[in-house]
């Protein structure tokens, strides 16, 4: 029963001393130990650390100086550097890397009393939509199709973070989203996930993939829980030059605002031929929920939507090829010896990186290379400016947008692995908001014909996470999503 609680309810229960942090965390540690062999949601488990943090939370609660997340057990995506705890980024090349420092975001969660169960599995360097590219094995989605035991992917790249929360192993988790890596796994696993505005959370201490797109965010089983976590994670950090110095509003309070009088946009370009009928139906249902709650539904156009993915697959690999140049076997990480320094670099990187990471580094290297920069990278940056303009124009007419999160529900492990482009198409609805840097949230809204969860995506204006939470809460209330995955604590 501890593992079914929401963070908001658990925090209240801890404050009333209905139960202790030791009991709450202990139940989640047991769940992790019982379920992780099947899920593989954690690369590194830290149960002893979690129990020590639980005891510290109990002491703070008794002393009356506990932070808002005191005693709340979380999973931390293994892309956030955690002081003294191995951080792999899902890659062999960082298999032995123990950061001497804490990322700003995870440090803020610790400041507020959170407990860390361990480091969640992910696609290698966050490059993927299935969690299949992790050097530490795939993650199994806790959900299965009706009448089938085929192992499904949890989505990616934050697949372990999403699976751990869906399976009631963690109450919440951190993720990062570069092109959909929070929203898509949230949708596939039937939980809520928020990618805030670029610049809202510090990127300091997060292993970099594509620096102009990477943004930290939160997963939980409710919108209000995501709001509570983001309130802790967000805020200005002088150590990240793209961190924005704006006050962090009370996101939980924003979830109570409702949508009366809001204008909600429906982008025409997200409705496409051959769309999955379950996804289409759920989208219409979501719009009618918002209309019933007092919102006005407005048709809008985001004309460059269809170019989002291709733009992304130039910009993100280009930035990745530059960011990943640091993994050379000299200062940290795994080294493969070579005849000379160049040979050492080449052998280290050949052995240390997986196939998808190598592919993206090579695409990025090519599009940045002499003679091709203007044709690819500069052109992509211009199309990116047009994508941003689409959103800016739309937000002059509406307060938020509602779209599906993903084109389909979760797919099977191993599907789409032989066709990189087919895999990339998973992110068709999430990439445009990433390119524009605007906030987006996926809320579980229903099941498809196979019994798998589907999410709806709420996209907001830059730094207007409050409206995103308000709209998402109305969807959550109306959807009353109560279906449970087959693999979960207490099942």
């Amino acid at each position, binding site marked *: 029963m501890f593992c079914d609680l929401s963070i908001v309810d658990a925090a209240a229960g801890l404050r009333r001393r209905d139960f202790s942090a030791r009991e709450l965390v202990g139940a989640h540690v047991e769940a992790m130990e019982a379920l992780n062999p099947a899920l593989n949601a954690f690369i590194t488990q830290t149960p002893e650390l979690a129990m020590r943090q639980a005891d510290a939370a109990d002491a703070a609660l008794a002393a009356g100086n506990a932070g808002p997340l005191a005693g709340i057990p979380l999973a931390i995506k293994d892309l956030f550097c955690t002081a003294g705890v191995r951080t792999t980024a899902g890659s062999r090349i960082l298999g032995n890397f123990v950061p*001497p420092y804490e990322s700003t975001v995870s440090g803020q969660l610790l400041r507020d009393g959170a407990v860390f169960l361990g480091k969640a599995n992910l696609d290698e360097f966050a490059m993927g939509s299935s969690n299949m590219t992790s050097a530490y094995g795939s993650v199994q989605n806790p959900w299965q199709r009706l009448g089938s035991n085929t192992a499904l992917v949890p989505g990616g790249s934050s697949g372990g973070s999403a699976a751990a929360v869906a399976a009631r192993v963690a109450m919440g988790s951190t993720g990062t989203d570069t092109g959909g890596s929070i929203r898509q796994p949230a949708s596939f696993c039937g939980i809520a996930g928020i990618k805030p505005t670029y610049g809202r959370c510090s990127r300091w201490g997060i292993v970099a993939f594509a620096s102009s797109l990477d943004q930290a965010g939160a997963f939980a089983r409710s919108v209000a829980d995501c709001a509570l976590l983001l309130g802790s994670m967000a805020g200005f950090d002088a150590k990240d030059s793209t961190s924005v110095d704006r006050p962090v509003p009370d996101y939980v309070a924003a979830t109570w605002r409702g949508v009366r009088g809001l204008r909600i946009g429906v982008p025409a370009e997200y409705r496409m031929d051959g769309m999955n009928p379950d996804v289409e139906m759920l989208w219409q249902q979501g719009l009618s929920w918002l209309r019933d709650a007092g919102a006005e539904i407005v048709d809008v156009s985001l004309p460059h939507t269809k*170019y989002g993915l291709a733009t992304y697959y130039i910009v993100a690999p280009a930035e990745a090829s530059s960011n990943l140049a640091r993994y*050379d076997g*000299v200062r940290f990480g795994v080294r493969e010896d070579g*005849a000379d320094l160049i040979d050492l670099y*080449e052998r280290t990187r*050949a052995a240390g990186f997986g196939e998808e990471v190598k592919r993206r580094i090579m695409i990025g290297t090519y599009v940045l290379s002499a003679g091709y920069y203007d044709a*690819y990278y500069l052109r992509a940056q*211009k199309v990116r400016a047009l994508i941003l303009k689409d959103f800016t124009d739309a937000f002059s007419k509406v307060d938020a947008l509602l779209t599906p999160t993903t084109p389909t529900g979760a797919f099977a492990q191993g599907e789409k692995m032989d*066709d990189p482009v087919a895999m990339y198409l998973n992110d068709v609805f999430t990439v445009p908001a990433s390119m524009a840097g605007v906030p987006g949230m996926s809320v579980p809204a229903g099941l498809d014909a196979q019994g798998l969860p589907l999410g709806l995506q709420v996209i907001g204006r830059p730094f207007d996470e409050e409206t995103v939470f308000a709209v998402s809460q109305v969807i959550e209330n109306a959807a009353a999503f109560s279906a449970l995955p087959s693999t979960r604590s207490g099942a």
Partner: protein
Amino acid sequence: MGAVIVRRVRARQPGCAPPPIRDPTSMSLDSATVRRIARLARIRLEDGDVPRLQGELNGILQWIEQLNEVDVAGVTPLTGGAQIALRMRADAVTDGGQAEKILANAPDRAGEFFAVPKVVE
């Protein structure tokens, strides 16, 4: 939408597409170019890897060529994720004296230095 993109790219005949910015033949990577990119990226390739990578990279590059149909005349490129100017900070030493922490993850070290194979004879 996914299916739509794939179909359009695959069905496109040479000559129907808007002209690529450079010589169209240069947009398809040959095996020498694949090796050159790998060398630039400092990733060792075995001979057997080249045909597979060449196919995969060409598939991706063909797909992203769809951007050639967008009119970008006069558009200022968007270089960052945030629509703000990057902040400047004081040019001051704010950290240091942590050689042991920095070297703690080094694959090889010599005293307070990272060690690598000899590069100058």
